[in-house]
């Protein structure tokens, strides 16, 4: 039974990674940059939701929506101020700026919200009508397997987001414009597509997803501090590369697999779980450098 419960936990954690990885992969696909500050936007989203619900008594759904709005604005602002001036700069300069932005966000959070961990509330608890106690999940097999509501909701959200993004990029005018920009910015401009606006939109979507991921992550693990987004951010980046960076189904698959591998490795030995995760990444990249679902682009001249 522990096999099954590890699998459930893995898929749930993997879903959070997948949501973060989708943001990474969208921004990479269109702006061709690795936004290392993405993980820290998660942390900001979680803090916004925390304060909105704990200090201002907002309903958790409103708190999450507020976090999405704040992160969207934050993401667009970061892109405008830090990355846009570097559009023509070498990619190394952009990479260093993104790492700098990541530390800037962490330290600002430290200054504003202090280093002591906050205990994130349990949003996903419902009263059992029969017994009157608060339940956080359903129990199967006579207590052999517990699936928390937050885990169920996380997986559901992840699937909804993945399907939503696939439809958005495949069917809508804006989504197609994003794909056009991702392939060839000059040609996209010649079509009349405003590339700067399209990149802003990509950051907006990625950051809103980061806010959702932040709320879901903290609802599962319940500790929130300024470095909360850092490691999940890096792991989600790993997941995006694992699945094939730039690919939406790739980010989804990479995220889920990474979560499952991590939880199983943890069950085996807590200390080396992260080492196992990254070892798997290295092996995958050695065998298939473009990632599991990565596309090799053949160009005709």
């Amino acid at each position, binding site marked *: 039974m522990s096999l099954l419960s590890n699998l459930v936990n893995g898929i749930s954690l993997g879903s959070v990674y997948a949501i973060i990885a989708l943001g990474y992969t969208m921004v990479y696909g269109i702006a061709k940059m690795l936004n290392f500050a993405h993980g820290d936007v998660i942390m900001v989203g979680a803090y916004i939701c925390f304060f909105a619900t704990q200090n201002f008594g907002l309903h958790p759904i409103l708190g999450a929506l507020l976090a999405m709005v704040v992160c969207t604005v934050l993401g667009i602002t970061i892109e405008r101020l830090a990355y846009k001036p570097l559009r023509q700069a070498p990619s190394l300069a952009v990479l260093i700026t993104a790492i700098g932005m990541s530390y800037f966000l962490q330290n600002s959070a430290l200054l504003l919200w202090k280093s002591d961990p906050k205990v994130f509330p349990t949003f996903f608890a419902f009263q059992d009508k029969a017994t009157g106690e608060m339940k956080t999940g359903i129990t199967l097999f006579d207590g052999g397997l517990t699936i928390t509501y937050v885990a169920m909701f996380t997986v559901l959200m992840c699937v909804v987001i993945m399907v939503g993004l696939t439809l958005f990029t495949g069917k809508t005018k804006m989504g197609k414009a994003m794909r056009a920009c991702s392939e060839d910015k000059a040609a996209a*401009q010649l079509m009349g597509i405003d590339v700067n606006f399209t990149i802003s939109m990509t950051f907006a979507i990625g950051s809103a997803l980061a806010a959702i991921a932040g709320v879901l992550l903290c609802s599962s693990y319940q500790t929130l501090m300024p470095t909360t987004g850092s490691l999940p951010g890096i792991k989600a980046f790993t997941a995006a590369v694992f699945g094939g960076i730039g690919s939406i189904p790739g980010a989804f698959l990479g995220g889920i697999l990474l979560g499952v591998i991590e939880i199983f490795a943890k069950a085996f030995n807590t200390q080396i779980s992260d080492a196992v995760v990254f070892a798997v990444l290295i092996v995958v990249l050695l065998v298939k450098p473009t990632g599991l679902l990565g596309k090799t682009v053949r160009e005709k001249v």
Partner: protein
Amino acid sequence: MSTVLKVEDINVYYGAIHAIKNVSFEVNQGEVVTLIGANGAGKSTILKTVSGLLSSRTGSIEFMGEKLGSIPAHKIVTKGLALVPEGRQVFLQMTVEENLEMGAFTRPKAEIAASIADVYERFPRLKERRRQIAGTLSGGEQQMLAMGRALMSKPNLLMLDEPSMGLAPILVEQIFDIVQELNRHGTTILLVEQNAQMALSVAHRGYVLETGKIVTTGSGEELLEDEAVKKAYLGG
């Protein structure tokens, strides 16, 4: 004859490199005008500057009587000026039809279906391959797609950058036939070519470009007969 495009005294730089030096030329309504010159003479740079992808330090570019100045590339398209870029630059991972939709990005949704039908009528091959990813098309088909995509914006002036590049002679002729046919139907054309023979034979007028400067101009026939042009560009 009214002037569609009037380029006056432009100077374009790539960093410290002075790529275009005091270039002036014009294109009139209904004409096919060609810019010919060797590789690196600055032909593509001029088209990129007119379409707004690059900017000129001096001078002016006037399209249909309006100064383009610092209008960004994505707004210039809406004024009726389209560029078929060098190397086609179709969106390889999008389908043929999606490429055409992108060409009509600035136009109202209701008009797009009719324009796509027009393009399919002109290029039946594209219709056969409408659901295929553009990356699977042959070079000639990609050139047709790039032209079709540019036509989707209903341009007054169609600029073509080396449409013959990398194509077999029979396809080159086909492409030039299409260019002439488009012109007969009222589209003004500015054509950049290394294949000077072909370009001059379809053009009303031509300009010869050498290291960023215009050195000769004349009608298509005149330039075909010009000794210096013959020697440098026509292999005789």
